[in-house]
Structure formats: structure tokens, C-alpha cells
């Protein structure tokens, strides 16, 4: 899609994510009360409200995404601020040439790498990484190997994230504050993995609006599928709520 449509899609994604976090604030805080310090919902909500206020809606995609990242860095705090916001700011440079299928895959991978590097968590530690990793890998494979359209790839990524969240419930946390609970962390889904899933779901839903019409077009015109895609990993990453 063209630059203008990319901007609109990014704006719509930010609005949708901020709205979803507002609605899920209480639930995320409940999840975090069980195994963390009970502030995940409130912190993310504060961050996304700041992003709504601060981010220039007509910025280029890379600047837009970096702006969202910086808003989260400055307002979310704790470990989630640097994990969401810092990773978003870091990965935003992948959109320097705009949002395409290729750049959205690169963005998602850069985001995942930064989250893992900054937080030091890997799959199985009961953190946002458990939702993010399968989502990013699934997305990449769907686009690059299976040659699927971005909407289908995105839908598969969301399913993978959902399984990732389910996977965090029965395991013991070994990273972040929940790890201090040891076995008492068992039986609760990870709040960061959960918020990551919410973001991916919102990205997918926005993508449907912006990309559906393009599906008839031959598989991969750089633009349409990419945009929604990049939005999605971006936001998802943004939100994946770290092992705090």
C-alpha cells in the first residue's frame, strides 16, 4: 500500500491497541497480581495513552513506530518499559523504506531479538517471549516459505501466540519477578505473554480492514500485506509484557 495508507493503518493500529489495553487493564492487573507486582495493566495503559497523545500521526512509518516506543519507554517503567518500548524503538529502523512483507518480517525478527537480548529470557521461562517467539517464527515462515498472503500469515501468527500463552500457564517462571515465586507461579498465564497476544489480535483485526481488498491482487505486492503485517508484529512486540 502507499505511504498514506501505511500511516492510516499504523494510526488505526495504535488506536485499537490502546483501546484494547484499556479494556483489559483490570484483567492484566489481576494476572500480574497472581505472579508479579500487580501493575502490568496500569503501566501498559499509561504507556499507550501517552503514545496516543505524543505520536505524530503523519510521521513516516519508522518515525511513527519509534515514537510509540519512546512513549512506552518513558511511561511504562519497570522492566516492561525497556522491553516493549526499547525493542520497538530499536526495530523501527526496519521500516525506513516503508512497510512491506519483507520489512515487516525483518521488523518482527529485530523486535524479538531485542526482547530476548534485553530481558535475557528464552522460550520456556514464562515470559512474553513464549508468545512472541512462535508468533514471529510462524509469521516469517508463512510469508517466506509458504508464500501466503499477509492476512493469513498474521492469523497464523496470532494462533501461535495464543498457544504460547496457554503454554505459559502450567510452567514455572524462571525469569522476571515471577521466578521468585518458584512453584507458586505454576497455574497462572504470564501477563506479558497475554498482553502480547492482545496486541497481535488487534493488529490482525486492523489488517483485515486495510488488506482484505488486496487479497484478490496477486500474492505479494509489497505494501498491502506488509503494512498490516508490520503493524502487527510491531504492536505485538510493543506490548509483550516482559517478565516483570
Amino acid at each position, binding site marked *: 500500500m502507499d505511504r498514506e495508507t501505511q500511516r492510516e493503518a499504523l494510526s488505526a493500529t495504535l488506536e485499537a491497541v490502546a483501546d484494547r489495553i484499556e479494556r483489559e487493564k483490570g484483567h492484566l492487573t489481576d494476572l500480574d497480581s497472581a505472579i508479579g507486582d500487580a501493575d502490568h495493566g496500569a503501566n501498559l495503559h499509561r504507556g499507550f495513552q501517552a503514545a496516543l497523545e505524543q505520536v505524530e500521526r503523519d510521521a513516516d512509518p519508522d518515525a511513527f513506530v519509534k515514537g510509540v516506543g*519512546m512513549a512506552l*519507554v*518513558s*511511561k511504562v*517503567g*519497570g*522492566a516492561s*518499559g*525497556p*522491553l516493549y*518500548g*526499547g525493542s520497538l*524503538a*530499536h526495530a523501527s529502523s526496519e521500516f525506513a523504506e516503508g512497510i512491506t512483507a519483507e520489512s515487516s518480517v525483518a521488523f518482527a525478527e529485530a523486535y524479538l531479538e531485542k526482547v530476548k537480548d*534485553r*530481558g*535475557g529470557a528464552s522460550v520456556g521461562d514464562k515470559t512474553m517471549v513464549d508468545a512472541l517467539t512462535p508468533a514471529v517464527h510462524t509469521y516469517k515462515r508463512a510469508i517466506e516459505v509458504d508464500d501466503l498472503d499477509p492476512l493469513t500469515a498474521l492469523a497464523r501468527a496470532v494462533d501461535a501466540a495464543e498457544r504460547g500463552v496457554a503454554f505459559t500457564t502450567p510452567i514455572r517462571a524462571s*525469569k*522476571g*519477578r515471577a*521466578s*521468585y515465586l518458584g512453584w507458586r507461579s505454576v497455574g497462572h498465564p504470564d501477563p506479558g505473554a497475554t498482553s502480547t497476544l492482545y496486541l497481535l489480535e488487534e493488529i490482525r483485526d486492523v489488517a483485515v480492514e486495510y488488506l482484505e481488498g488486496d487479497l484478490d491482487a496477486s500474492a505479494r505486492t509489497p505494501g498491502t500485506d506488509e503494512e498490516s503485517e508490520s503493524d502487527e508484529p510491531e504492536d505485538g512486540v510493543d506490548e509483550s509484557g516482559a517478565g*516483570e
Partner: protein
Amino acid sequence: MKKLINEPEAVVDEMLEGMVAAHPDYVRRLEGTNVLVRADAPMEGKVGIVSGGGSGHEPTHAGYLGEGMLDGAAAGEVFTSPTADQLQGMIDACEGGAGVLCVVKNYEGDVMNFETAIELAEMEGDAEIEHVVVDDDVAVEDSLYTSGRRGVCGTILVHKVAGAAAARGDDLAEVKRLAEKTVERVGTMGMALTSCTTPEKGEPTFDLPDDEIELGIGIHGEPGVERTEVMDADSVAEHLTERVLEDLELAEGSELVTIVNGMGATPQMELYVVNRRLQELLDERGFAVHDAWVGDYMTSLDMAGCSITVLELDDELRELLAAPADTPALTVRERGER
């Protein structure tokens, strides 16, 4: 709870205003932030030394701003890491062309926010920025807020060494090397007689009955190693000293600097009583104590208790610790006489 505060959410801002009002010749506040920097920052051609962390540990960190120690100190909310954007602003304000060394206490939030700040600063400029992570608490390996050991009162000695090295003109790599050497050679263990109470919560962070104390407690009231019956000062000193020495594995005849640090609500009287036994123990074991600091260096709000820090000196560290420093919380004059 009785505290000398106004609105709990204003406490950090109002504290910083009061600090600047008390020490305008030492510190200034970066507008719109909770960062204090040296009044004369950035120092042209000198490596900037910055630190930061949650509030509630005063005089750490801003009390150590000044000649021979820190150039910048970022204050987070109580017991909460400063955000990366504030840390980035501090790094920028303390960069005088020779790079910046960030001294970070090992807590997940602090480490992640500093790393993010450094990355953002590097994306936007060409300053050289390095960081060292202090993890001197020998009590616990992993804790509520950390992977690995916590960073506690030994951090002040890292500020002192790095600050003195930067002040005499060492380059960034050398300053970092000396800071890391200090981290390797320092150990600390703390204990609590009472919990602390954060302004926001208004009730004790943890429950510690009148007839019990906690050994190995962290500076946020995180659980320690064990709860025991109340013991006398000598027994506490023996317990803490034993654990620190066990960890450091010092050679006989080592030369040391020690700190008996108050947690915020312990009278100087009691800290001196603890120091008396600490010095006896070290003397019995054939260590030479070059300098014994006693006072409130890194506190935990209104917690009663203390920590004991031991640093093993060598020629380099001895010289840097004795170098002059002039800050609101610590003054070192020529010849190491404070």
C-alpha cells in the same frame, strides 16, 4: 504511619527541589526531569560518571554528585528504576567529549533501563558510553528483583574509584577497568531490625516481629537469607563479617576499606558499636584496615538495620579512594582524612 511528607506521589519531586535548594553550588536539576547533575556538568574532556536508581536510598545517588565522584544521578520513583528516557537525558548532559561510564546496581529494572538508555543515546549521537553492573551483595544469588546478586552499598566505593580516576584524567576504558576491579573485590551483607514503609503504601513492606531480625535483607525490604531471634550487636557483626569474608576469600595481610552502613533508622551510636566488633574481627585475622567508614551511605527509607561492606585494596584502589572528593554526602580531603 507517621512521615514528614505531603502527597506521597510528590515525594520524589519535592525531595529533589529540597536537595537543589540545599546544595545549589553542587547540583542542578535537568528541567522537567528527576535527574540531578553536577552544577558544572558536563566537564569538558573528562569521562562523565553517572548513576541512578529508585529513590529511598538517600544519600544514594545524588548525594555523591560533585568533585571526584558523580556527574549525574537519576532518581526514579521510590524503589523503582528511573525510565530510560531520563537516563538518556542524564547521559547526554554529562558527556563532555571523553565518554560516559554508567554505574548500575544489579536490579533487572535498572539494568534494562540503563541498557536501553545507552542504546538510544548511541542511536542519536556518537558518544562512547560504557556501563558497569555492581553486584556486591553476598547474601543471595537470585532475588525478587535480580538475576544474580543485588547491588548495594559497595556501589558507593565504585562511584569513588571511578570518579577519582575520571577526575585525574583517565580515559573511558581505564575508568571502566578500575570500576570493574572494584566490583570484583567488594562484598556486602545487610540485616534488618525492622521493615521499611514506603510513602505510597503507608504500611510496612514486610512483617518482622519484635523478637526477630532478618539477615541478608535487601535494600528494598526483599527477603534475606534467614530470620533469627534478636541478637546483640557483636553477634550481628560476626554473622555479617563471616559471610562477607567467606565470599571474598582474602589473602592474609590484605589491606581493606570497610563500611558499616545504616539502613536509615539506626542511630550512629549503634553503627559505631557494630564497627567496633567488625574492626576487632578483622584485626584478629591479620587484616590491615586502611579506612573504616561509618554512617548512612545507602539506606532503605526508614528501615532499621545495617550492612557491612569490605573492599580489598591494592595500590591502584588505595590511591583512588584517598583522592579528594567534595560532594554533599561525602568529603575526602588530601591524605585520605575525611
